[in-house]
């Protein structure tokens, strides 16, 4: 399979402190990748770089063998193609929603493509994401999970090649989470999903990338193996130790938490 995304020694800082250090990995077309890391490890920042929204101070990022630069993302033709092919579901759906109705929200990207079957596509994706009945309502009043579905519909309507999802399950209740996992399974495009929910991560993809607290990539490989590697889990601070009581017996051992 061909490589679609390639990161070479990426480092990024907002002010003085680096929040990503020397990150390198490749993504092949069609891969489903889970990006794990504790709060503040740099997951969202990394997705923003891959989406061409912010630019690393060090290292190179290639999309389909093209070096992505600030300058390139000012070129009209390229922007149009890139933004259609690589889409990003933000961590907080509120930041993405600004159209007066759900219909307009989903049609927003399509209208910029000057295609004929907008109406058909909007309805198709609304149906698929289960928000058809809201087409005429303003999206502001929907619940967090419904908003997320509207955002997903509006991104998928573009028929992108890569979708980046930042904590897509954080607003979903257990039933919707189950639905989302099935939905993802059938989705036939390259995906990178962030989460800090360990048990859920296995359902979201096979390959895991793990960021440590000091913002380095400490694991790239089979997710199941990572989850069985207590030393690596400790390094990523994704487990912690605490006391337990079972009746009168007290003991300590490592724990993973899924909240």
């Amino acid at each position: 399979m061909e490589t679609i995304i390639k990161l070479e020694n990426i480092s990024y800082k907002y002010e003085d402190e680096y929040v990503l250090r020397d990150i390198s990995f490749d993504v092949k077309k069609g891969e489903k990748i889970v990006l794990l890391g504790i709060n503040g490890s740099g997951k969202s920042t990394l997705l923003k770089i891959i989406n061409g929204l912010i630019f690393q101070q060090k290292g190179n990022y290639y999309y389909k063998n093209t070096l992505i630069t600030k300058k390139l993302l000012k070129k009209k033709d390229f922007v149009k193609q890139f933004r259609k092919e690589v889409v990003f579901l933000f961590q907080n759906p509120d930041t993405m929603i600004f159209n007066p109705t759900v219909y307009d929200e989903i049609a927003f990207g399509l209208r910029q493509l000057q295609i004929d079957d907008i109406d058909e596509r909007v309805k198709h994706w609304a149906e698929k994401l289960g928000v058809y009945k809201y087409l005429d309502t303003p999206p502001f009043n929907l619940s967090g999970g419904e908003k997320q579905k509207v955002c997903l519909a509006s991104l998928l309507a573009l028929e992108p090649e890569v979708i980046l999802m930042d904590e897509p399950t954080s607003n979903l209740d257990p039933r919707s989470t189950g639905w989302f996992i099935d939905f993802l399974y059938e989705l036939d495009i390259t995906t990178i999903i962030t989460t800090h929910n360990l048990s859920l991560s296995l359902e979201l993809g096979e390959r895991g990338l793990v960021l440590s607290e000091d913002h380095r990539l400490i694991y790239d490989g089979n997710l199941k193996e990572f989850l069985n590697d207590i030393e690596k889990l400790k390094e990523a601070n994704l487990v912690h130790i605490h006391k337990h009581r079972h009746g009168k017996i007290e003991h300590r051992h490592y724990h993973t938490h899924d909240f």
Partner: protein
Amino acid sequence: MRDKLFLLFYVFGVFLFTIIHDIFVIGVFSLILVLLSYNQAITLIRRSIISVLLFNGVITVSYILYAIFTGRQWLEYITLLNLRVFALTYLTFFFISKVNLFKALSFSKTLTYILILSYTQILIFKRQLNEFKLALQSRLLEKPSREDSYNFISTIFYYFLNKSMRNTKEISDAMKSRGFFVE
């Protein structure tokens, strides 16, 4: 000590400008404030106007439109609102120009905490605003239409208005639960 006296004056001022609902009284107090700051008055007036212009402008215009559509009175409310915000801003600039804030609050852990809290709020708002911009940029395949820009800006505006109202309520509830302003 000087810093602390100024602080007292400031807190009292904020309190007054917040509880008074009479345009005339607020007007008189504003005037006194301007006179008190005599040699800085022009700089402070300019600075206050510039910093409230956008925010108040948007609120004023949208409120007037809203009031016209729903057939409400707006003149008094809008005058009071603008005057109040101006007075509070003026007072704050005046105070900051005289005082080192962290020094003035150093006597109380709680107040230092509140200062840090408000400072953090500002940072969070700033970051959130940036997040909105990035999200739009991510979805823009070409330059936005005028209508899209309008929708975008009004959404952000509404979002922050809502959020700050909720935050204010939450913070004041939290303060009440810690025994501040007992009614």
